[in-house]
């Protein structure tokens, strides 16, 4: 099934759709799902434009993706993208919840903590499982550490692209330090296998993580402020790929001045004090500012989460059979809000609907790049933190 702008399950009779930032689904009679999809078309006569094909495998890109860049001289008139080359069409239906969890972690391995926490939360809710505050705080900690790691990666791509080599290396250094600290605390650099439905799967040791994260955040703060003094760097990001409006997600949306963050209304973050950084430019610079300020906020959230974690017991709860329940949820991943809706029957998945933030952000990017020059392409694209892996189909 292709991803659309909404997560939905179509069971043949009814269409169950999940709005953004919502755990409550809406049911209506099935209609053409294509209504959700909006085809983009270029207003230009494409026969007069040069087409620059880029991808699907090419140096400089993190993942396999194909672009046709339509240009008029240096100016980009339009782009068409194809994210299907590396489409894995991951199968979920028919699987037990534990098997499905392992696949959900790998929907986007770089954001595995967010996706596995979302999946576990929906399953636990559907089975009326009580999750301890220790586990909730631990999941918050994992997701915020993941956010810092992900944002540092995006910053490293921007600084590398702008030939800010010392900043680039320093950002990579901080990210590697963080990944090593995560590996020591959780046994895996990307949190694979930590979350289980009803709890966690192995012992963790987070005592030293808070201090390490705070040090990384402070060091990044110095790098951020030095970068903001660099006219060369700022010029590269300023006015690149301007995105406005709510048809984007996460730091991209907040970079266009919209103060909306799924964490503010998520039950895991109840009682957690944090600011939602925004910026008004809507360009790559605004997104860089939002990400940089979020790193400091995430470090503060991690401190709060650690103070709320006591002795974590590994007593996992049995996954018990529930009959034909549909349940949904959302999570603010580092790239933005993801929606997931599950139909569970007898401990197995009977249906799944999913919408990743990258689906929205890729559309927003394609709309925004018109009128930019070739040199802006990299900064526009990388500043969005798009992950092609999470844009794939699912079954």
């Amino acid at each position, binding site marked *: 099934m292709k991803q659309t702008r909404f997560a939905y399950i179509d069971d043949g009779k009814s269409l169950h759709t999940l709005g953004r930032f919502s755990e409550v689904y809406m049911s209506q009679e099935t209609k053409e799902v294509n209504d959700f999809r909006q085809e983009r078309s270029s207003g230009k006569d494409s026969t007069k434009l040069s087409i620059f094909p880029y991808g*699907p495998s090419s140096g400089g890109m993190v993942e396999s993706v194909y672009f046709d860049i339509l240009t008029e001289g240096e100016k980009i008139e339009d782009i068409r993208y194809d994210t299907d080359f590396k*489409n894995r069409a991951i199968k979920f239906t028919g699987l037990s919840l534990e098997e499905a969890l392992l696949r959900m972690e790998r929907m986007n391995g770089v954001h*595995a903590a967010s996706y596995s926490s979302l999946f576990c939360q929906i399953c636990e809710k559907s089975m009326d499982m009580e999750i301890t505050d220790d586990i909730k705080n631990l999941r918050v900690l994992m997701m915020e550490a993941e956010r810092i790691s992900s944002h540092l990666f995006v910053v490293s791509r921007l600084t590398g692209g702008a030939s800010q080599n*010392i900043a680039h290396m320093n950002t*990579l250094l901080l990210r590697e330090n963080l990944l090593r600290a995560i590996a020591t605390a959780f046994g*895996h*650099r*990307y949190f694979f296998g930590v979350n289980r439905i009803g709890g966690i799967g192995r012992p963790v040791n987070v005592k030293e993580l808070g201090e390490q994260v705070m040090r990384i955040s402070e060091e990044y703060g110095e790098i951020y402020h030095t970068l903001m003094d660099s006219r060369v760097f700022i010029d590269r990001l300023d006015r690149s790929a301007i995105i406005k409006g709510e048809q984007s997600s996460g730091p991209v949306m907040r970079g266009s001045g919209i103060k909306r963050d799924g964490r503010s209304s998520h039950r895991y973050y109840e009682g957690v004090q944090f600011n939602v950084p925004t910026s008004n430019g809507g360009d790559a610079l605004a997104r860089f500012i939002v990400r940089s300020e979020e790193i400091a906020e995430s470090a503060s959230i991690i401190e709060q989460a650690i103070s709320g974690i006591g002795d974590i017991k590994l007593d996992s709860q049995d996954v018990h059979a529930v009959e034909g329940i549909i349940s949904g949820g959302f999570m603010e991943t580092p790239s933005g809000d993801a929606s997931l809706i599950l139909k569970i029957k007898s401990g197995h998945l009977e249906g799944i609907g999913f919408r990743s933030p990258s689906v929205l952000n890729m559309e927003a990017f394609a709309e925004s790049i018109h009128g930019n020059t070739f040199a802006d392409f990299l900064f526009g694209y990388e500043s969005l933190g798009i992950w092609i*892996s999470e844009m794939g189909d699912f079954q």
Partner: protein
Amino acid sequence: MKAWILRSFRKGIITTKFPKEKNEAASPWSTIPVHVSGSKDPYCPTGAINDGTVKADLCISCGMCYPEFEPSMDIRGSVSKLSVPVLKKSIRLYHLDAGTCGACNLEVMALAGPHYDMARLGISFTNTPRHADALLVTGVLAPGMMEPLKKAFDAMAAPKVVFAIGACAISGSLLGKSISEVLNADVTVPGCPPDPFAIMDAIQKARGRQ
């Protein structure tokens, strides 16, 4: 500019001395688990465990075998079918994502970071397979990437080495097919994802420097 220079001096040298010295870090569950106690055949979603031993190529680092199994912390689990001495001085890598979750890609890219600094060993990335000595393939073989993978391999000049990096590329893991449908891997690097030290160790093996 002054701030950057001062910052660099304050940092000192942080690059590893690996492979001359032992790796100073490892992602525990990305190393192959070993039996420590209890059942020798606990549940494994990929069937990697048989009578107390783990088939490295199938292990997806999920930790479902805990507490009977624990990580070995051994990053030298890669297997190289060949050794190409002509690449001892310099090797150029082309990375191809055949269908990853993204994690393997970042572990490959980490080699260019300051902790690993692969350039000190004569290892570098290239942006085109035509200039590459080795093809580093990550991810399961997505149908759409079969053709690009074949074309990338055909574009390379001999001698050319194919690395299958991670459980997905080697065995297809939980998510699809292995790259063996299109190419035979000369070097396999197990792990989900493999630790950057494990990837570096595998590259050195293929060059006959281990």
